[in-house]
């Protein structure tokens, strides 16, 4: 076991896969010589050379288009989109081209590519550099969507994403880059489509993703110690494919579902899970489903404003207490 930061786990995951498979290449803006604006890809250029680790112009459509072209002709590219907000700039390539080409060609074309991007708020970058947009990706058929919360998951899920024959959108949370965590030594390979139960309780099941997982765990601790409400916490990890089996069985055990989502309110990823639970667990619910989300606004930038807008531990505790017996 080693202790790695989340950002180092990114570099380690990429390195592991690049070492293992010559077809894996990596491109993005400022990723090679500078090691990435978030320093998540430091050392890769030195280790693998300029042929395999390439800096690109500011051309998101070209970066992802090139990744797609390379993927369909024998390579396994990892492309970086610096801020997930910029996916909007090249969303045609993601949603219309990459997501649909296999289906439209009836399986003739395979696209084993990974798009890594820095998602989420907490860094005071303002509305256009702080969004969580994994729910946009979840809504488009044909892309797999992953959002790890811990360094070990970063490395293992990145490896799984690279080895997956389908396109994967890999959302790293920028406010987690400095967090440390245990990462197993040796080869790390996880599984897409598998949620993890991080804590077991009897009164409610909290389902969370990425940075919100840590807040959910903090809130669950307070709820249990100070308010006698005992919560299960599930880290979804993978939106597509979605581990509905785990989520549903954990909801049935407690009879209550709470989601904690960094997305703005409308059509956050939790809305879909809430609808599945309302359908398939209806007769096991002991109370209404609670979604704890960012309100439906662009994100403000000042410290206090941003902290108050994104679901905080305090707000999670408060909203659960208000809704529970």
């Amino acid at each position: 076991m080693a202790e790695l930061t989340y950002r180092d786990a990114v570099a380690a995951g990429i390195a592991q896969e690049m070492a293992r498979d010559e077809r894996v290449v990596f491109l993005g803006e400022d990723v090679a010589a500078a090691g990435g604006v978030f320093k998540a890809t430091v050392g890769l250029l030195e280790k693998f050379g300029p042929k395999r680790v390439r800096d690109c112009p500011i051309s998101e459509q070209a970066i992802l288009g090139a990744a797609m072209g390379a993927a369909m002709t024998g390579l396994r590219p990892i492309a970086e989109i610096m801020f997930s907000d910029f996916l909007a700039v090249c969303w045609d390539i993601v949603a219309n081209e990459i997501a649909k080409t296999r289906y439209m060609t009836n399986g003739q074309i395979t696209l084993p590519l990974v798009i890594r991007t820095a998602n989420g708020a907490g860094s005071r970058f303002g509305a256009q550099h702080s969004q969580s947009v994994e729910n946009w990706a979840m809504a488009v058929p044909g892309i797999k969507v992953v959002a790890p919360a811990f360094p070990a998951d970063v490395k293992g899920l990145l490896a799984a994403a690279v080895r997956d024959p389908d396109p994967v959108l890999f959302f790293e949370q920028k406010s987690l880059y400095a967090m440390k965590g245990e990462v197993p030594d040796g080869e790390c390979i996880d599984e897409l489509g598998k949620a993890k139960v991080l804590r077991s309780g009897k009164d409610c099941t909290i389902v969370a993703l990425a940075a919100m997982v840590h807040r959910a765990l903090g809130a669950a601790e307070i709820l249990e110690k100070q308010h006698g409400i005992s919560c299960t916490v599930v880290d979804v990890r993978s939106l597509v494919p979605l581990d509905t089996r785990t989520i549903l069985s954990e909801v049935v055990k407690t009879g209550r579902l709470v989601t904690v989502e960094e997305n703005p309110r409308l059509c956050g990823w939790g809305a879909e899970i809430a609808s599945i639970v309302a359908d398939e667990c209806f007769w096991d619910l002991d109370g209404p489903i609670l979604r704890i989300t960012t309100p439906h606004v662009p994100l403000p930038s000042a410290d206090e404003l941003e902290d108050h807008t994104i679901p905080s531990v305090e707000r999670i505790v408060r909203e659960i207490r208000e809704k529970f017996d």
Partner: protein
Amino acid sequence: MDTSVKRKKATTPGIDIGRETRLELYRLQVELRYCEKRAYDLFLQNLVKGTSHLSLGQEAIAAAFGVAMRPDDWTFCTYRGHAHTLARGASMAGVLGELMGRECGLLGGKGGSMHLTDVTRGAMGSYAIIGAHLPVAAGAAWSAQYRGTEQVAVCFFGDGTTNIGAFHEALNFSAVWRLPVVFVCENNLYMEYTPIHAVTAVKNPAADRASAYGLESILIDGNDADEVYRTAVECMNRARKGGGPALIEAVTYRHSGHSRADPAKYRPEGELERWLERDPLNLYRTRLLHHGFTEGTLKDIEAEAMRKVDEATAVAKASPTPSLDGIEKNVWADGGAAWRN
């Protein structure tokens, strides 16, 4: 309107087009024309559904490149891609079947007219979002460069594409990385229903922009199959040897509207007639006769082409509509569409 085209650059006179190549060039143009016309007829019979973008009048470009490209080269084209896909050797029955939404279609009825693909022939897709496939072609070229092969990606698009962002990104990207990709702008003078000159800052939408990417300005007569062929060979060979990308503007004209929905009433009086006089097939036929090929040879080619089109039409018509269980197939590499367990 001036229908003559000034060549800004002389092609290498040294490329000799052999007789076999010439026959091949003609045969392919004829097949492309007859098949496309058949698609139009089938539409009038309500057998071709949705929309189709016909390339009648533009066959020389697809045919010339089709002959010039090697089997392991890649084609990327737009939704007006029937000819380009056929030119790489995709089956006519597959093309007509796809247009008619049948099981024998190249895409099993899943993609339709705008997405014709046959990866076994290097036809890596027809793309319906303007400009999107240019960076994709660059990516394929990168793959060849990375793996050290001599493959080339050829990317076809229209004059309207030169104004979209992805065009600019792909050209710059390809130039900086010196990728083996040949970008071919088929300037048929109209961006959908609008004359291209009304919406473009420069006179020659592709050729006048090449210098922005450090590339040579290449402007050719897109209706002259020989000229297109020579240009294709030269640019592709340079790319294969690591000479980087090329941007070719081939001026042509489409005989029908933008799509079948378009009766093309926006064209000025007489323009179509003048261009019909420059029909590439007629031009080439005349040239072949001038080079000593017999009328009989040419008629045999034409008859054979028609026979192939008739045969393909029959196969396509006989093919059933696709099974409904194809709806949830092939989203993922495992052949399925599952998003949950």
